[in-house]
């Protein structure tokens, strides 16, 4: 029998026993739905964790320090592993070199300082952090009240909610108002000044020039109040209570601990950085960039290994969720076997008629197989849809719960295309395997016995 005729006959048979076949298909759908819902939960949680970690800026970044003054969190390399390279200073030239490396999107210093903030006659001491412009899209400030900085050089500030509460009982009313930063500015002293030469002579130093610390004030407009504390850690945005654009922060020339290093290095006019954050396109580029920077003679640190462990944990998690989901599908496949075996009894005479009219064993087997496959196909489709609904309901419920806890909502269930297609394919395969026995049994029926059956 041709495939089209076979499909039409199978479809007709399925339509005719619509209630029983629908219930069987629903059984498959429930099995697939539980599998999809479980796995979508695993994938969703994994995606959520990855997104949060990526947004934290910890996993697509390499943190670079000069080997001269900062060894970094990693243990030192074995002394005999490589020839010692000359230790280099992290200055603007090096920053430019890093930014030209392949797959590097951004290189910026971490400018973090503690200073006085004046607002409405009050003075508070707080920590300040310069934010790179890329943090606008990183999601680290998702759910923030107000807006991100209008430009990379804007004289604007974003407050962390706890600090905003210190300044005002109604933190959101601060948006649009101005505050004043009082900070210590580093300024380079001219080399050719007579008093400089005298100073050098007096100090007995070979270093030309010097630095001076000058108190300054800067007025900033408050543009946003963030309720969440963005992830902290090396290179993270957390830990500070007042944020301003990185370029604005750089232009302030706030005295930093690394200024002493610049002073010692003999070129205080050219700032040296304590550490630089090198951001790459994706976490997979980290290793290559890290190697290139090490080759240039700097110490590096990244958290890539932590993501590998995370992936392992989630793979095991997905495996267990998938196993539990598969149990439901196994029960559903028993339903298919039951339905088709019952159909053989019910359609025994029909099988006899088909054989009397010239149907081969293969035709009969294919017919039952097609019916099982169709139940699997429809069950798979409905199952994926049902799984999506369950996942959405879980996300919805979780979001409501989180909102009640004053936390931003999250998407905990996610169905990627491979999961949807895989679940449908799995449902079809399980249904076909379930149809093997009934189909073989129907094909083996003796036509004379089948025709005699009442």
């Amino acid at each position, binding site marked *: *029998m*041709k495939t089209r005729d076979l499909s039409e006959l199978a479809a007709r048979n399925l339509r*005719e026993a619509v209630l029983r076949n629908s219930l069987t298909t629903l059984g498959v759908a429930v099995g697939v739905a539980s599998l999809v819902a479980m796995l979508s939960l695993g994938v969703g949680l994994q995606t959520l964790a990855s997104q949060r970690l990526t947004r934290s800026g910890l996993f697509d970044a390499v943190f670079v320090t000069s080997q001269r003054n900062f060894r970094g969190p990693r243990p030192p390399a074995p002394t005999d592993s490589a020839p010692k390279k000359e230790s280099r200073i992290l200055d603007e030239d090096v920053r430019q070199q890093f930014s030209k490396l392949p797959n590097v999107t951004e290189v910026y210093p971490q400018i973090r300082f503690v200073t006085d903030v004046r607002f409405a006659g009050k003075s508070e001491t707080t920590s300040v952090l310069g934010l790179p412009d890329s943090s606008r899209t990183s999601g680290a400030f998702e759910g923030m009240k107000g807006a991100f900085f209008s430009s990379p050089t804007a004289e604007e500030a974003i407050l962390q909610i706890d600090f905003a509460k210190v300044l005002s009982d109604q933190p959101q009313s601060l948006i649009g108002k101005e505050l004043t930063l009082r900070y210590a500015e580093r300024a380079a002293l001219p080399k050719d000044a007579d008093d400089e030469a005298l100073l050098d002579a007096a100090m007995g130093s070979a270093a030309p020039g010097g630095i001076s610390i000058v108190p300054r004030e800067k007025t900033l407009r408050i543009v946003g109040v963030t309720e969440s504390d963005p992830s902290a850690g090396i290179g993270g945005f957390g830990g500070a209570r007042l944020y301003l654009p990185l370029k604005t922060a750089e232009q302030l020339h706030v005295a930093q601990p690394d200024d002493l290093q610049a002073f010692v290095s003999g070129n205080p006019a050219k700032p040296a950085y304590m550490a630089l954050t090198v951001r790459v396109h994706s976490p997979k580029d980290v290793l290559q960039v890290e190697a290139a920077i090490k080759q240039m003679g700097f110490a590096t640190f990244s958290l890539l290994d932590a993501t590998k462990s995370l992936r392992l944990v989630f793979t095991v998690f997905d495996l267990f969720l998938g196993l539990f989901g598969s149990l439901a599908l196994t029960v559903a496949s028993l339903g298919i076997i039951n339905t088709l075996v019952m159909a053989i009894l019910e359609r025994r*005479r029909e099988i006899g008629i088909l*054989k009397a009219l*010239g149907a081969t064993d293969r*035709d009969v087997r294919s017919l039952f197989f097609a019916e099982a496959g169709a139940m699997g196909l429809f069950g798979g489709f409905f199952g994926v849809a049902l799984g999506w609904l369950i996942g959405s309901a879980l996300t919805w419920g979780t979001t409501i719960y989180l909102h009640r806890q004053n936390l931003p909502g999250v998407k905990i269930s996610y169905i990627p295309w491979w999961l949807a297609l895989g679940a449908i394919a799995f449902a079809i395969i399980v249904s076909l395997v379930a149809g093997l026995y009934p189909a073989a049994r129907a094909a083996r029926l*003796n*036509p004379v016995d089948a*025709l005699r059956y009442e």
Partner: protein
Amino acid sequence: MPNAPTFIQAESVSREYQLGETVIRAVDGVSLSVAKGEFLALLGSSGSGKSTLLSMMAGLDRPTSGAIRVRDRNLAELDADELARYRRETVGMVFQSFNLLPRMTLEENVELPLRLAEVDRQDRGSRVGEALERVGLGPRRRHRPSELSGGEQQRGALARALVNRPAILFADEPTGNLDSVNGEQILLLLREIQNALGMTVVMVTHERPLAEKFANRIALLSDGKLVSDGVQH
């Protein structure tokens, strides 16, 4: 039909069934030949083995011993697929209980052998229409079997048996579920079609008057054995 060539040849055909420890011999060493274009009635009481013999000649069952040759091919030696092909291409069957599929309309029932024989879709409509017109059921083509009378159902079954233009029509008690008027009409129709198409017909019946009225020849079976084989005039 003394001069017509032999079309079906049963040679010492036996069919045994095992029922527990008892062996039941349903057909016992029957030898019989059917000529091309002949209308043979297998007559006998219930349990005489006539339906079993018909099933073997129609390729639905295999003899325990002996041979059934159709066009010189021994059906006992054909494998399952070849036997199915024989049923599909050479044989048409009509049953006592009509055996139309209740879920299908009349035309879908008649189309079924064409689907199995993989006949082109373009040709199917005309062939189904032709078969239904021949049995006078053209206007009832979209009805389901449950919407037809017994006589109409049997005529529908006859149309289904004819649609593949078989060389042999096997009819197993075709009037068994019909009243005498409808029974006679069916056999009249069968006879007309046989004359028109030149088919060979083998009919099982236990009604001697009908066999005598419509068949060219009557073979009488009793307890699985052929007891008489006579030509009708």
